[in-house]
């Protein structure tokens, strides 16, 4: 089990950052999803033992993070969101230093640092001081620093924030390679659903300090029910929408003007759409089946939560 949280709460003055968070999650790559201020970073810091929770139990890789933070951190690699760095050190020195702080002998740390920088694709720039690095280089160095001591779980806090599409794609590819290879399990905190969709097989959705969902992405999509159909046709499809609603199907306006989104009632097939269109004389030129998107599932999960207590 990667994470097991039971009734974890954390308050900063008037702000309740975590409200009785309870979830158990396992997998090779887990996304920690939520809007800004949802409590993702606080949850990660609590898991690392950097913040003591006000209440509740936190177990990471089977270890109590509150009682044994050192042992937990030995098995975790963490790349924080901000530009955390030690000015004056080069990329290579930063990674080797991180290894030494985790107990690696100096020579091993240096060799391992080269290895990790090769892995993350930082070539000649590794000898330059970190303060001269671009955002993309920083993210790579932070990833190498988190990996240098061979952790069992890699925690990445917004690793793609501030990256251009090319760098973002490369970084996500690298995380996928780690996930599929011998690398550690990954906990990816982000508010970018695309990143989670691409990398993760499970996710935790947080909102206003509470966990709204914890489980596999497949299950999350399945919770949304049957697939949707997008309809486009000639003229006004309002009459068709009324007809479909009368038959018990859920109809909403599509993203494009004049388009409809139809979720059929259980047991009904797409022929129900054609029958209704024939009945009201509507002319359709597109009936497209669309799988449930993570975005919809995410919005639904957050919507279930209601206003904050």
């Amino acid at each position: 089990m990667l994470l097991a949280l039971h009734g974890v709460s954390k308050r900063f003055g008037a702000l309740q950052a975590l409200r009785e968070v309870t979830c158990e999650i396992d997998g090779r790559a887990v996304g920690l999803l939520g809007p800004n201020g949802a409590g993702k970073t606080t949850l990660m810091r609590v898991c690392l033992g950097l913040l003591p929770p006000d209440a509740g139990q936190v177990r990471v890789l089977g270890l109590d993070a509150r009682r044994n933070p050192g042992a937990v951190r030995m098995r975790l690699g963490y790349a924080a969101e901000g530009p955390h760095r030690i000015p004056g050190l080069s990329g290579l020195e930063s990674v080797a230093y991180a290894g030494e702080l985790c107990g690696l002998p100096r020579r091993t740390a240096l060799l391992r640092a080269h290895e990790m920088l090769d892995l993350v694709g930082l070539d000649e720039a590794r000898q330059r001081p970190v303060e001269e690095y671009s955002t993309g280089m920083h993210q790579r160095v932070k990833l190498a620093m988190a990996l240098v001591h061979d952790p069992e779980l890699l925690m990445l806090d917004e690793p793609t924030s501030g990256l251009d599409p090319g760098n973002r794609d490369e970084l996500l590819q690298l995380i996928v390679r780690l996930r599929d290879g011998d690398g550690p399990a990954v906990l990816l905190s982000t508010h970018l659903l695309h990143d989670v969709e691409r990398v993760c097989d499970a996710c935790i959705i947080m909102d206003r300090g509470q966990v709204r969902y914890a489980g596999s992405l497949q299950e999350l999509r399945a919770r949304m029910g049957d697939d949707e159909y997008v309809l486009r046709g000639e003229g006004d499809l309002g009459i068709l929408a009324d007809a479909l609603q009368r038959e018990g199907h859920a109809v909403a306006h599509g993203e494009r003007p004049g388009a409809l989104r139809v979720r059929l009632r259980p047991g009904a097939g797409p022929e129900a759409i054609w029958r209704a269109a024939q009945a009201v004389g509507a002319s359709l030129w597109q009936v497209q089946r669309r799988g449930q998107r993570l975005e919809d599932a995410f919005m639904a999960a957050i919507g279930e939560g209601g206003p904050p207590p």
Partner: protein
Amino acid sequence: MKDQVFAVGYRRLPGGRPRRWAPWPIARTALALAWRKRSTKLGVVLCAMSLFGHGMALAAQVLAQRLAGSRGELMEGVMRGIVCDVHSTLASFIGVQMLACAFLLAMVAAGLVAEDRRTGAMELYFSRPLRRHDYVAGKLLAAGLVPAATLVLPFALLWLFAIGMAPPAAAGELWGLLLPGLLGALVAAATLTATILGLSALGERGRTVGVIYVVGMLVLTSLGDELPDNGHRWAGYLSPLRNVQTVADAALDAGGSGLLLQLLTSRPETNPSLALAVVCLLALIALGLGVLLWRVRTEVAG
């Protein structure tokens, strides 16, 4: 180092690694980073010049006395001259070097905690399996090595130099200067280290902390030197240097042989109460360490 070829891919490390002592890499890296700054090299040159100057003065004084002895002057006069000269030079060395060392510490250690807080490196440290006391020990080691290398060790070298050059009769008496001097140098080193780290833990910019530290030390030292002469005897306790000299002088009185104490005709200016001087120094050390520990405790939980 042997060449090794790695495939670009993730490789697991063999398990069961022994836990290493974390403070050493922290101290080594901090000192290596400090050494890259030009201002640190300037501070080192300043300390080296002070050491060189005192060494030359010591050699000249001892040689002059030996020369006087070879011309037939009384042995007791030669001995008195050598012991007095060596004592005053070593006492002056501790005073001057303490200020030079404060300048060097401002270059090396002012940013040790302050810059970690400003750049977010604190989180970087504590997301590793590092305990608070490892971090504090690493920073203390880094800062403490500076006065150890520029004050304590050079004092011992100067003393050895004097012993080596002095005639055997005088060398025997010079042994009595070692422990009080070392005690003074160690107390000065502890005071300088604790105060710079305490200030660094309060500030957020190394440069600002360094300036405040040097100016503060200079002001306290000059207040402690000047005000007692004008009737404000209490002001002597403000000066860490004067308090250090009080401790070293008391140790000399306690441990020195009767002959050595008779030979010493002049002593550095000290405070009247040893107990109060010790309390002032301990308070300064405790304050510095207390602020450092409090800051690290408030920054991280684990």
